């Protein structure tokens, strides 16, 4: 009996989750279409010629024309865009002007490094951010609270490039604990400093949100009731307050994906990390439009899907939302 009830609940949850997932995925199509159109138009407006950028100091006019033809840059802009969309429908992102290879290969080669970095940075920001926030909330107004919040503000306001260089100077150059830069052979030692740098910005935001959200929940009657029942402060915070304080924190974590995407190119540059951020910067510089379009598409997908995951997380965290939707 209990088993069938559980199955029903699971089916209900799946149905609850299914609707927003499908809705969001459908809504994704025009968003992505709009993004690609915008990037294409911006590139068209921006000064610069991919063929010329590929030719170095000395450009032979005939070779330039040949290259423009090869890159199909001699076609009208709407035709270029339509061809790109048509290829995209077939799962083909075109060929990189600079590397003369399929864009999918170019992106696939760099994606694992960025995924690894972004996941590590996210884990750091969640664990550190929630820990700092919870500690500060446990002793509001104390010296510890002030110190931790000062650290959080520092994390938010410190430029990624500067923080990366400082961490590298201290932990790699001076103390010689960690490598200065590079991907190594994929070992964790190479990941620590870039992940800390990228995660720092977001750690501060999560910590501040965690603190204020926890403090708000702590003032609720049911927390006072829990305390009145004689539960330990640890139990009150961990079991009762934390779960309810999580919703705004999860929102911030979702929004934080944007921070990761913004911070990735700089972090990857400081630490010579071979990821998508550096690829995108180089591609913009070279006006390698197929790679720019492909990379932006991936970033947009990550951002939109990340927000979708946040919505799903709401449902998982707060049963009231599921009930509300079911009724």
């Amino acid at each position, binding site marked *: 009996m209990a088993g069938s009830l559980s199955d029903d609940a699971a089916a209900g949850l799946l149905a609850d989750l299914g609707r927003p997932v499908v809705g969001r995925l459908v809504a994704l199509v025009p968003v992505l279409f709009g993004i690609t159109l915008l990037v294409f138009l911006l590139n068209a407006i921006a000064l610069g010629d991919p063929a010329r950028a590929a030719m170095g100091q000395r450009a032979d006019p005939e070779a330039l024309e040949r290259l423009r033809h090869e890159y199909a840059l001699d076609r009208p802009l709407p035709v270029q865009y339509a061809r790109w969309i048509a290829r995209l429908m077939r799962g083909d992102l075109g060929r990189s002007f600079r590397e003369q290879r399929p864009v999918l290969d170019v992106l696939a*080669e760099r994606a694992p490094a960025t995924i690894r970095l972004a996941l590590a940075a996210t884990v750091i920001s969640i664990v550190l951010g929630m820990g700092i926030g919870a500690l500060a909330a446990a002793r509001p107004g104390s010296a510890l609270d002030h110190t931790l919040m000062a650290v959080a503000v520092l994390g938010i306001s410190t430029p990624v490039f500067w923080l990366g260089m400082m961490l590298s100077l201290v932990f790699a150059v001076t103390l010689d604990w960690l490598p200065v830069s590079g991907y190594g052979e994929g070992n964790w030692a190479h990941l620590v400093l870039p992940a800390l740098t990228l995660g720092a910005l977001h750690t501060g935001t999560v910590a501040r949100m965690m603190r204020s959200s926890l403090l708000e929940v702590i003032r609720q009657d049911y927390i006072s009731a829990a305390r009145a029942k004689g539960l330990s402060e640890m139990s009150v915070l961990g079991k009762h307050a934390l779960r309810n304080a999580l919703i705004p924190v999860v929102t911030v974590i979702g929004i934080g994906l944007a921070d990761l995407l913004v911070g990735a190119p700089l972090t990857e540059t400081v630490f*010579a990390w071979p990821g998508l951020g550096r690829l995108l910067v180089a591609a913009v510089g070279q006006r390698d439009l197929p790679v720019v379009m492909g990379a932006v598409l991936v970033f947009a997908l990550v951002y939109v899907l990340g927000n979708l995951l946040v919505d799903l997380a709401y449902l998982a965290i707060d049963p009231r939302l599921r009930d509300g939707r079911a009724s």
Partner: protein
Amino acid sequence: MCLLVVAMVVAMASLSLAQTPEVTGKAGGTLRAVFSSDPPTLDPAHATDLTSSAVIRQVFDALLELDEQLRIVPALARSSTVSPDQRVYTFQLRGGVRFHNGRELKAADVKYSFERAAKGKRPWVFEKISGAHAFISGSVGDIAGIRLVDDLTVELRLDQPFAPFLFLIAYDAASIVPREEVDKQGTGFASHPVGTGAFRFVSWRRDDQVVLERFPEHFRGPALLDRVVFRIIPAEITRYNEYVTGQLDVTDIPTGRCRAVQADSRLKGEAAVWPTLGTHGLRFNVERPPFGDARVRRAVAHAVDPSIIVQRLLEGCVLPAKGVIPPSLPGFSPDVKRLPLDRERARKLLADAGFPGGRGLPPIAFNFNTSDLNQRIAEVLQAQLKEIGIQLELRRLDWAAHIKLVDEGSAGFFRQGWIADYPDPENFLTVLFHSRNAGAAGNTSRYRNPKLDRLFDEADAMPSGPARYKRYAEAEQIVLNDAVWISLYHYTSRALIKPYVKGFERSAQSSAPEFLAPLRKVWLDR
């Protein structure tokens, strides 16, 4: 036929090629070098940048190469002769040279490689060969001026004499590639190159590292290093930190730290600064007002004081420039002089041009490509020109946008650096100032001077020597007097090299961090 060829070769003036000294040292080890960006390609036909060239020069060989003194020395060609009319070059290839795939090099590979590269990104390297233009434009199927005399002899015929021709043959665009590998791999050849070079390709993790290993069957004998790893590190401070922590054996000195590094006791003897083949200059587009008036250009030239830039911004680690041609380039003339700093004269010239005290002259846009150094130089220029009443508006754009404005002639006053592809004044002066190169081909000033064209045409065809260099010097002085170009300084290579790295060439062509030095000569003494 054979007798005829022998007779011709005997009749030809023999070109003396300097011999490369034997390389000795301790074998083994890995050299850890670095690039500032990922090479776009490793295919010599499609490379246009120093990073790509730095790898290509290790993996491939050309018929000839340049030694540390920039002299032409034999490489795949055992010898080279030129006909008395300087139009027919005959190259005798070494026998038994093998590609990395084991196949023996033949003369047909030279023809294939040249024709393939002629349709690549540097067609100008081959355009002097008879029939190259028709081939490049697609109207004929091969370059008529390339003739295979036998399996190991190639003859190249030019439409007209061209003194620096052998430099073109020694250039990395003229590297020899095996046809079967290109056919097999298609565009993949650019990321899995196969040549005859002292090092063969092992791996390339994009934006991370390129790995090469010794090719034991190299025609000169195996290189001393086991491996070469080129790390790709975009931030110069990161490269420096990697060097300091012992993770790199060679790197560049970060901008603004030249003196500090030289004074650092921990790095004593590791810092090296040497002149290279480049000049940083300012250019005018003479087709855009007010720069069609030579008086305005001269006024600017008289008002600019490059010593501030050389001494303060670049810490004296570059060479002050008097002319366009750098001192390390053969043909440099110490007699050529830039217009001297003379602000009174500048004000008078500006007044003569109808702009007394700068009145009536709208603010002038100065275009430069994004870099901290370029920004600081632009600010110095802005302050210096203000002294004669010229208001400078700084327009900072990324490279692609900057070069487009310059190429299409939209920029009136702009920054331009030039690094010689090969050590000959033709590659500086003819390329940058001949009227046939007006626009993207090099003469971005769009300057047309029949006297200059005549001097270039004569000098380009003359055999190397004082008479030829005299013509270039005369042309260079005309350019400077007419203030088409204002030289600020000549480039240097600023490098850090670990003391145990031996045999590292510091030629004027080798510039940190993308050294073009032949690494087969390098060994590690540790």
